[in-house]
């Protein structure tokens, strides 16, 4: 298991066990495409029924996709909660392609989970 996949799994478990996240993502069911720019590795994180449902390396049929891109090291640090996603986004080292509502949801998740 790569460090990025480990961090994603850790993030999934942490989000699913947090009492506020289920309410926060109620009715929000995108597939989050996590792209490592330097290694070309892609992971798909499905959100379903108020839970971070699954992580896979297979493509997704979902019409509601949102993309997160950065180097593998930046992504790993973010999903492990070691670095601040808002700062990475502001700095231009994290790219997020989504509509406004999805942006707000992602920001809210990181604020609730990591307080940053």
């Amino acid at each position, binding site marked *: 298991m790569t460090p990025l996949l480990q961090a994603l799994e850790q993030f999934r478990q942490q989000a699913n066990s947090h009492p506020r996240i289920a309410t*926060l993502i*109620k009715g929000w069911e995108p597939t989050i495409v996590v792209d490592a720019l330097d290694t070309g590795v892609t992971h798909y994180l499905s959100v379903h029924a108020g839970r971070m449902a699954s992580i896979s390396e297979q493509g997704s049929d979902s019409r509601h996709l949102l993309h997160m*891109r950065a180097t593998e090291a930046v992504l790993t640090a973010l999903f492990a909660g070691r670095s601040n996603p808002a700062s990475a*986004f*502001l*700095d231009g080292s994290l*790219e997020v392609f989504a509509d*406004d509502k999805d942006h707000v949801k992602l920001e809210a998740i990181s*604020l609730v989970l990591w307080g940053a």
Partner: protein
Amino acid sequence: MASSRTEKWTELLGYVALSAGMAVAASSYLVLGLLARGHSLGSLALVLGLACAMCLLLALALGEMSSRFPSAPGIRTYLRRAFDDRTSLFFTYVMMLIIPLVAWVEIKVFLAALLPQAGAALQCLVAALLVLALAWLNLREHHVPRHVQTLVFCLLVVLSFGLSALGLQAPVASAAEAAAGPAFSLAMLGEGVGLSFFLFVGFEWVAPMARTPAAARQAVPWSMVLAVLLLGAMYLAFGLALKQALPAARLAASAAPHVTLGEHLLGAPGRWAAQALSLFALLTTLNAGLLGATRLVYGLAREQALGPRASAWLRNLSPRGVPSHAVLALALASLLSALWVIAGNHAAAVAGVGAGLYTLVYAVFAAAHVRLRQLPNPWPGFQARVPVAVYGLLAVLATCVAGATVLSVVQDQPLAMLALLAFAVAALGLSHRVAQGKQMQAALPTH
């Protein structure tokens, strides 16, 4: 193959609609009226053409920067990477000052277009309802879908060009008036170009709105270039139509020149068409504008960049994850300022100050691009290939234009000048304190 090409063009049109939709507003027609009043036909075409050319260069620079930092919050990221945190914060505060300025003028012109006979009380009530409805839609997470935004924008373009064509074909109100204008001077040129910048303000807000990595690399940069060209053509046609068809006295007396033109050309149906134009323009601007502004305020609050207490309050989220306090704060600020503008008669002056300050922000964008072009770019995307010296010249010119525009408005109004100076000092102090706090935090040992 054909369908994928159609999808590509539809996607590009959607981004052009977002970019140009942010810039074109009901208040744009007020500014076009001011320009038409103060310039001859030739001089009007010159100032609009110069502002359009400068914005086109800027769109190319912003296209390169947005392709380099896709999805990043434009002003905050570009200036931070080009210069430092302090400079970036200072100009982000300036941008935050401009947002309510533009909102004031916008609401004022919209009400003048829609309810010209109404008293101040009724106008205040409608403004309050409008702002509260927008805040409620945001709090309930109801956002206008992008295809609706595109459709509304297309209707706006058709209506605007339609009225312009009729105005340009109409008998000339007064050939002497159309040709006449104040004697040409450099100050007048600077002020005219600065005011014309107001017409393009906001086209770059599309930069962080790409939905896919591919769109961020090509469709979004091109959309800004196309939006500026489209806006330039639209404003030029409408400005010349205003100057040609309306007598100077009617133009001077009008708070909503597009409605006056519509009524002058077609009677009541023309007035309705111009009122529809105001409504479409308001919808396209406020839909994207309020969302963008909310995210800007919320983002700054998350960085603790609005002072500790205000930041703590503004970063509050509703159970559904909506930055509810940021939405409410913006709604309240817009409401208070709209009431102030309705009660007084400051729309033209406020538009002038807003135009000048935004031109200054554009000058800094050009300077940031000069700096960024000297730094290595590991993943180059959109490349305009304009010599870097041209952007340096643009930064200097835009700074001069900004100065001329702001001074022309505040030179006779010491209170306004004092308020601007106080804001600049406060913003400098806050940006210094916040940047210093971050540096100290970064220097702390981590465990």
